[in-house]
């Protein structure tokens, strides 16, 4: 491709589409960052929360024919309940164990949930009901799929709601305190266990919504769970414990994915997040905005 023939319209279109789809990545990343900040755990089962949300929405909306808002509520509540159960039965007994044990527990959790859901619903992919408008938006020469715009708006609203919640609500402030220093939080009278359970439930809510959105963009199948693994690139780039980092990195990775998909094809797109992860870990392991860990003996 010569420089003169470079198709700027396509480039801008890819970039905008990427930026918009990055909003969804940022939303999923928020689910990871919440749990990491609050409890110091990387939840490898995030993708399975998404699956759980999408499949329970599908079941209640398509199989049981409940109205869409009820199904949405049902999906979100059931994933949050499931997250609370997991926190109580798996993470609580492992509190105080080495990082590696807790990490392996969430990997086990991911495998168990993934297999469980696939066993119940089978490996086939189902068509999700259209809850997000698909009408494309045309700006000048640019054509932007409507779904991506609405997903971006939705993600932005949810992220903004969470940020406001952490800023102003009492429980939100308690969460920030627990994230900062659990022992001090405990001393000033915050119920650390309850707060940590709430953090897991919130991550479950985020996962459920993200899962429903991702599934309604494509179809719903067990492969949905792997989307979250590619979001690991976002949280590593942004820094594991930074919500701002998750947002910025989500948009950046979105653009990177969209550009590689546009110029190099879908196969390369699927692995580009992992290549980015390795590159960042080599250069700047704590990410763009993450706290640099200082170890003491």
């Amino acid at each position: 491709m010569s420089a003169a023939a470079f198709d700027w319209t396509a480039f801008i279109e890819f970039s905008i589409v990427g930026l918009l789809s990055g909003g969804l990545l940022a939303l999923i990343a928020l689910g990871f960052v919440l749990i990491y900040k609050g409890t110091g755990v990387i939840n490898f089962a995030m993708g399975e929360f998404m699956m759980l949300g999408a499949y329970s929405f599908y079941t209640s909306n398509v199989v049981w024919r409940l109205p869409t808002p009820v199904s949405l509520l049902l999906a979100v509540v059931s994933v949050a309940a499931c997250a609370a159960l997991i926190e109580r039965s798996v993470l609580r007994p492992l509190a105080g164990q080495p990082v590696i044990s807790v990490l392996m527990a969430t990997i086990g959790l991911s495998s168990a949930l993934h297999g469980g859901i696939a066993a119940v619903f089978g490996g086939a992919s189902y068509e999700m009901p259209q809850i997000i408008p698909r009408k494309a938006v045309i700006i000048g020469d640019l054509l932007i799929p409507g779904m991506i715009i609405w997903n971006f708006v939705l993600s932005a609203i949810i992220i903004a709601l969470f940020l406001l919640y952490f800023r102003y609500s009492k429980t939100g402030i308690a969460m920030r305190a627990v994230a900062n220093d659990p022992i001090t939080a405990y001393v000033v009278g915050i119920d650390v266990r309850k707060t940590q359970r709430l953090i897991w439930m919130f991550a479950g809510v985020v996962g459920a919504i993200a899962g429903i959105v991702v599934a309604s963009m494509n179809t719903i199948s067990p492969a949905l769970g792997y989307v979250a693994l590619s979001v690991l690139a976002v949280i590593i780039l942004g820094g594991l414990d930074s919500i701002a980092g998750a947002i910025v990195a989500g948009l950046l990775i979105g653009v990177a994915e969209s550009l590689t998909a546009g110029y190099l094809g879908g196969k390369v797109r699927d692995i580009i997040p992992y290549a980015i992860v390795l590159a960042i870990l080599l250069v700047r392991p704590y990410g763009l905005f993450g706290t640099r860990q200082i170890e003491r003996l």
Partner: protein
Amino acid sequence: MRIRDFKTSYENDEAIWQTPVARAWMAALVAGLLAFPFVAGGYLVNLACLLGIHIIATAGLNIMTGYTGLISLGHAAFMGVGCYTAAYLAHRGVPFYLTIPAAGVAAATIGIIVGIPSLRIKGLYLAIATLATQFLLVFVFQEWTSVTGGASGTIVPAARIGDFVFNTDLRMFYPIWICAAILLLGARNLFRTRVGRAFIAIRDKDISAQVLGINLLRYKLSSFAIATFYAGVAGALLAYYYRAMSPEYFTLQLSIFYLAAIIVGGLGSTLGSILGAVFMTLLPELLRGIVASIALWAPRSLEILSPLQQAVFGLIIIVFLIFEPHGMADIWRRIRRFFHLWPFRA
């Protein structure tokens, strides 16, 4: 009851098999293994071959994760490197007794490259880095068609010495178990040397280890190299055993399988690697048996076998982490202790 067990020399205290009884049991085990293919049926020999391969790979992962504390989610991909190296060389007429170590070296080379960031990152970050490696390597397996045969896979010529072709399960049993025996003995002995002790020190607290004069970069990379060498050898044996390979075999699920094996067996224990591999190899067979018997009434239940396996692997990881964090090796140790002390105290 164990009596008159006095250690009167350093050699005696450091020996792997410390008592005549232990040595006798070991000899019986070796004899049993040698005779096994002639006594057991085809299905059991098949299972034993697979078991040998799993034991090698599990022992490798245990050196890295169990002893050195470096978590790896990419073990299956390193096996893949070994497998494809062996296949590539075998196509060019290199005999199998050279391709197997070469496969180990190739995997170790990639392992060292991946391990270089491990000086700066650990714990969570390393897990994510190895996860990324897993996906990148499988991508390479799928796309580098000229070497790996791409997504459709590759055929591997059978191993042979002169006119003797290792083309049946019965014949592959011996090369697999000889490799397993050598590598297990190597793993067991490694932790009686400076290198192995350094690994354990790094696992317990890497900064303290550095203060004690352990070169972290060198030993962490050694740990990566040894673990991935084991994975490479296991992969090469897998290539000769199945004689047809495709990238779908080396999935993240297989990496988690080995992680489950070391947790179930016992982190930081060679016996644990063996017990864990045995457990994890037999478990899918047991599940298959259960599902097959259910399938008589519900024919569709065979379809859920693979997800069911995945779910059970995950549950087993969690259950062992919570209730038996030292794994089956510790259960075994408690049983032995009971009999050593019997009848004096339970």
